[in-house]
């Protein structure tokens, strides 16, 4: 039996953060929640996450900065970026392959589950072929 998929949910809005975590747990994921960018960085440094669902606008460190600071070794988690704002082309180009999917808030739960599943598949695939 495969190990449970570990997902980090980082959002400074408690309502979003908690309901998102609950929806993902309900879908069988193991979820760790973080309330801002620094917490997210600390969590990512401590554990091997398969997927990170990151809000863009967060105190202390925003989601884009978190993605940019990810350590490429060991293989980083598949990232899903969510934002209440539109993602401009410049950010998309800068982050490139490091982001699996962009979601516009409010995110439909079905879209969230689909995006996390997709990111998990990519991350697992990368880990499987990695060193």
């Amino acid at each position, binding site marked *: 039996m495969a190990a449970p998929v570990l997902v980090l949910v980082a959002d400074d*809005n408690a309502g*979003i953060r908690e*309901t998102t975590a*609950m*929806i993902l747990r309900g879908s069988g994921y193991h979820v760790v929640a973080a309330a801002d960018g620094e917490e997210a960085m600390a969590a990512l440094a401590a554990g091997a996450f398969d997927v990170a669902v990151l809000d863009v606008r967060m105190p202390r460190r925003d989601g884009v900065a978190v993605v940019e600071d990810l350590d490429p070794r060991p293989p980083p988690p598949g990232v899903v970026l969510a934002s209440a704002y539109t993602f401009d082309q410049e950010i998309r180009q800068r982050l490139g392959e490091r982001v699996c999917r962009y979601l516009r808030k409010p995110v439909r*739960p079905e879209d969230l589950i689909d995006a996390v599943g997709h990111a998990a598949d990519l991350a697992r695939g990368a880990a499987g072929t990695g060193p």
Partner: protein
Amino acid sequence: MVIEAPGRPSELRARLPLAMVTVAVLVAVAGLSVAAWWVVQRGVQRQDAALLRNDTSQVVLLLQEAVQTVSAELTALGTAAAESGDSASVFAQEAKPIVRQPGVSVAVVDSRAGPAPVVLAAGPELQPGSPLPAPVVALLGHAGPALTASPVFTDGAARVVAFAVAPVASRPGVVAVEVAQVHPDRAAPNATGPYSQLDVAVYASRRPSASQLLLSTTGVRPLPAPTASATLSVGNLHWDTVGAARVPLVGGSAAAGPWVVLAVGLLLAAALASTVEVLVRRQRHTTRIVARRERELLEAQTAVVRQERLSAVGQMATIIGHELRNPLGAAINSLYLARMALGDRLDDEAESHLVRAERETARAAALSEDLTAYMRERPPTVVSVDLRSLVDDVLDSTPPPEGITVEAPEPGTIVDADRDQLLQVLINLVSNAFEAMPDGGTVRVGGRALDGGTEVTVDDTGPGVPPEIGERAFEPFVTTRATGTGLGLAIVKQLVQNHGGTVSMAPRPEGGTRVALWLPATRRQEER
């Protein structure tokens, strides 16, 4: 901001091709020129008249010398006859130089000798022993040492004038008489000499009289005005002499002076008037430009103020649009969790509550999306877009519901537009059309070149838009649908206007609605 005062002055100005001030300058300077011409002309005329008077007096002096010669000759003739005892040879000697002049006759007369008093005579008119013409007889009564002359009279075929002198030294009753033919009808020659610039007429009377004309340099022609007259006085003889100038006596250049003054003055008037007109027009032009700039500035200011107000409203709307997203997201998540948690325990009533909550949160999410799109204006990046490929993209993202057929244009219809923005426009219009036909129908998207641009039409076969909505359909938050946000067509209008285009909605004669938008062709043909 009034550029020109209303009412009569501007009406008058509109009728005049020139500015009032130009006309005033023209009239003033031209008037001054005419006045100056008049003054100078008067001066020149006075000068000319003075010179004419002077020259006429000089001519009279010359004539006086000639008449005095006649007086001296007659005195000498009478004296010689008396002293020689009426010697014919002495007379002939004295008379010879006188009668050498054509038409001149002389005689020595004894005034006390009765009806045939001629003692000695020479010349064509007088013979010794013959009777004298009545005017000569009358003259004898007045004869004295000083010269006396008769009026002009006719003697046979000839017009003549007679002179008489009774010398003091001769015996009493002896009078020397000269009768001279005159030809006033022949122009007296005056082509040379110091007074050749004058025409002169001499009358054997104190006042000019045609019958007494002795000689004239113009023949029977009257003398041209202006004239000057002087009296030729020798003895008892007083003849009027009239002179007229053939050429300006002050000289050609002096005579031309007034006209030069007038011409220069009128030229000056024209030059000044045209300068003033140019200045006035330039000033008016400047005033117009300033007025237009002021108007543009005012419009720009108004636009800035409106933009600032809109921008404040827009920022507010944007903030609200974004800030709503997190609570909306949490609510959507919670509804999902509630549905999961209830699972089989969800009864019909709870289900209907959940459905309504889900529908309304979805609508709120759409509203926040549209609000953000409406406020997120950016200038279009115009490229040439094939309308057909755009419609294909529309149908990919907004597939037609069951029962609705979509007729897309043939490839090749080119629109100059920002592709993303036109896609948004067509998605809004096509989805509106879908929603207008819940029972199915046809949506036709067409395009054609029109008025230097492209017209894109979206037709549906729905029930049509209520007339009370009309053009208000493009205003924000005007909608006929319970689930619409009322921003779809407002976004369409905003995007089309940002392209410099127009959009309108009208019922189709065969039923349904047509939305027509026109976008200008901004890219040149060769760039395509």
